[in-house]
């Protein structure tokens, strides 16, 4: 080793920036759901074997491993199965804390997805709460779940846990 190197401190850290760009393939089934959002409606698919309705569908029933072809348009009404009160601020947050993120079970669906709850104080949200989707104005609709602004209470009586226990 040269004298010059001997007097250098060892390298203990190096920075190697990495950036990769990708195209995303939504797939045939998910594309239908995404186009549904652009039209302001929820589009799912029904399994021909177990008859369960998946929204959004990935094109198959993960239980029966068969293609799901039958399209099902679902209503705006739903039940909160479970939820989380967000109290932690983070970078890029667009909503005031505390706010509610909930698992949303659309009426007629057999799988939940994440949704924002508004129009009710955080400490009053509960399992079984009945809600409905509030969409962004028509001119702002796009092929994204962001087309749903949030879900708000409908005022209907709560659903019994036994009616959605399977979906928790």
């Amino acid at each position: 080793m040269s004298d010059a190197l001997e007097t250098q401190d060892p390298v203990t850290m190096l920075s190697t920036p990495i950036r990769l760009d990708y195209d995303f393939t939504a797939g045939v089934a998910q594309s239908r759901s995404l186009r549904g959002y652009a039209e302001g409606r929820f589009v799912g698919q029904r399994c021909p074997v177990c008859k369960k309705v998946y929204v959004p569908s990935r094109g198959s029933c993960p239980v029966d491993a068969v293609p799901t072809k039958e399209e099902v348009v679902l209503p705006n009404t739903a039940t909160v199965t479970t939820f989380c009160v967000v109290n932690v601020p983070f970078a890029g947050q667009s909503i005031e804390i505390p706010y509610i993120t909930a698992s949303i079970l659309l009426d007629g669906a057999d799988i939940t997805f994440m949704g924002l709850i508004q129009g009710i104080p955080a400490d009053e949200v509960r399992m079984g709460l009945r809600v409905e989707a509030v969409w962004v104005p028509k001119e702002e609709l796009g092929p994204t779940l962001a087309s749903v602004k949030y879900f708000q209470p409908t005022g209907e009586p709560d659903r019994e846990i036994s009616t959605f226990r399977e979906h928790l």
Partner: protein
Amino acid sequence: MSTAPQPKQGTRPVAIVSFAQAPTQRRIEQANEVELLMPVISEVYAQANMTKDDVDFVCSGSTDYLIGGPFSFVTALDAVGVWPPKRESHVEMDAAWALYESWVQLQEGDLDVALVYGFGKSSLGDLQRILALQLDPYTMAPLWPDQVSLAALQAQAMIDRGLATEEDFAGVASRSRRDAMNNPNAQVANDLDVATLLKEEYIASPLRRHCVPPLSDGAAAMILVAGDRAFDVVDRPAWITGIDHRIEAHAFGVRDLATSPSTTKAAHMAGVGEGDVDVAEIHAPFAHQEILLASALGLSSATTLNPSGGPLAANPLMAGGLIRFGEAANRIMDGTASRAVAHATSGPILQQNLVAVLEAAS
């Protein structure tokens, strides 16, 4: 009544009984990975007259780096149906290694049937940059060397050693793409002679376009059965009578790129030289690598190499190695071969090599 040949490794004979693959394409734009896999898995079950309920173990090979999203192998399970819960595993490698893991699982004796599958879409990102990330992260990956340039270093090392010429490379490509004309799943199939191919410009000297594999989207699936039950599924199961996997150093600087001692060792352990080899399906994405590997495997000129057209005709990452096993097994199952060699590679310029001998029962 046939009996299963005793394997060289392990105690339990295991056979490939069915194999299916998606027709390889440059870019599959509509189907996502689940939709790409579903018809392939349906076909592999149909061939074996099985359903998902017959399968005891599921193992896949894929990589999140291709799709650019985490846990893509978990979402891919939507195509498989894993309810009631099954034993399931995944390798971040070509699905040929998922076959290897399944073979090990079946040796345990409490499982009899395994589903193996692999999938990869090279079209979603910049493959040359993605593959650079499998290199040493401190000294090599930050330079972003592309796989074609690395392969060119290897090809040049072979030329410098007098092991092959550019005409030899063109000969491999010419034969492979001509053979691919009989393979409906191939992506690049044509009838061009060596002189025509040698007129192409270099991509990375000494490699011309014909020496380089296509970018491919694809998927493949296979069913393995342990013991005599395989004879209930198919007349001529492709028995895995020897299998071995060896790895070379990650750093190129300490390797002799013109040879493949890991392949030679794996071939010896798998028993390749212990009988005539009718057919070999070699996972050589670059033309020069077929010459290098055929030599390392100890194959004679009597062996038919890559009758499917090999990876020069279709090269779906993470499925391409499994396809070699599937094509070799098909030659056993259709009666055109009695003893075949299947080879799969992983890592940069043939770093890892998996070799198996497939045989029909006598």
